[in-house]
């Protein structure tokens, strides 16, 4: 037996425990490698931990990130109001449109029921009027039920746009500014179409209808709220023409106080 063999025997005797330990460590490393390098094995180990952490994180979001997000959103909305309106407008517009359509449908059904189920002299009169004018009977009922009001009447000098007389039930806007802007708009439109004999006759603004009746040296603007349709327009035109001729407007154009009194007396009632 040489020296190396002797040394080997001594090693076997002395290092048996260490070798077993090393062997067990090697096995554990292999298992770990198997776990880390193979996706399925790693997922099985890690996923429950991540799921648990995520659940906790989601639960804590309102307390931890909530105030920061709210503050950031507030700041963003404050700084870009136009963008927010742009973004919301189509959504709100659609909602309002659907609501209005639904309500109109209900109203239409209600009116149809009223038309079909009732018989009266008024209905007979309405039917005759509908046939004569060619306007749907439902439209006539709608017109009867809608509250059309004359809100403001202004007599405006052509060209300068200065107010010759004004009457309004509720002070809606400064009559001088309204008269000036109406005149500017009229001038622009009439110039643009380059037809001297044609005049701008109607402007719609928000919930108001502005009826414009032209005369030689002045025009009359009547601001109407509520339903403004062809029948109302015709009646209003008649009323304005009657006012201009009966009240001798042309001869009193220079007398603002008198003209204002006449205008108020004539247009203070909504009935046309």
């Amino acid at each position: 037996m040489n020296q190396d063999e002797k040394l080997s025997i001594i090693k076997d005797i002395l290092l048996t425990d260490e070798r077993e330990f090393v062997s067990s460590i090697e096995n554990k490393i292999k298992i770990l490698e198997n776990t880390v390098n193979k996706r399925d094995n790693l997922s099985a180990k890690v996923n429950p931990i991540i799921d648990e952490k995520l659940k906790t994180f989601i639960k804590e979001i309102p307390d931890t990130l909530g105030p920061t997000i709210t503050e950031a959103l507030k700041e963003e909305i404050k700084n870009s109001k136009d963008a927010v309106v742009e973004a919301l407008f189509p959504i709100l517009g659609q909602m309002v449109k659907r609501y209005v359509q639904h309500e109109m449908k209900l109203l239409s059904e209600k009116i149809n029921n009223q038309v079909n189920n009732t018989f009266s002299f008024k209905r007979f009169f309405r039917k005759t009027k509908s046939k004569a004018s060619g306007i749907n009977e439902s439209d006539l009922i709608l017109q009867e039920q809608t509250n059309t009001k004359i809100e403001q009447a202004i007599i405006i000098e052509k060209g300068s746009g200065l107010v010759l007389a004004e009457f309004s039930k509720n002070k809606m806007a400064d009559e001088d500014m309204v008269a000036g802007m109406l005149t500017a708009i009229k001038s622009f439109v009439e110039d643009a179409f380059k037809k001297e004999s044609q005049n701008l006759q109607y402007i719609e603004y928000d919930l108001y209808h502005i009826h414009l009746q032209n005369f030689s040296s002045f025009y009359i603007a009547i601001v109407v709220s509520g339903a403004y349709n062809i029948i109302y327009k015709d009646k209003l035109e008649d009323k304005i023409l009657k006012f201009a001729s009966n009240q001798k407007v042309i001869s009193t154009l220079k007398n603002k106080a008198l003209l204002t009194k006449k205008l108020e007396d004539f247009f203070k009632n909504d009935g046309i």
Partner: protein
Amino acid sequence: MTASKKIVLLGHFGVGKTSLIRRFVENTFSEDYQVTIGVHISKKTIEIPEQESISLIIWDLEGQDDLKKTRSSYLLGTNGFIYVFDSSRPLTFENLNSELKFLKENYPNVPVKVVGNKMDLVNKTYLAQYSSVFKPLVDFFVSAKTGSRIETLFSKLAKELI
């Protein structure tokens, strides 16, 4: 009853017509330039000593480098013109003579005030350099920024209109 008079402001782009009106009507001024498109109308009622009050309906027209290009229907029935130029930009007053001639020929009975705005941007030496243009034609040098002489301009014109 308060009488109303139509005042129209004319002049090149960016001479400060809108700023001048804003200073007079609202007593405010902003450095931000926003071009006027079409026409903008303002109103201010002023008291004339020993007279009635008078409402000035002020038409602020979009700037034009040539008065002939202005929409003539906007000028109908005008009681007084204010022709504004930028004192610091010779380009805005180089045709002053012909522009005023156009107004006098087409609106012979309407008073015209010629106003050099942005006085805060020029000095005496500069004014002296253009005195041959300014002296015979200009009625007021004003500054919409500082408010200098703007009240005087409008009240003088208003007095002439009564």
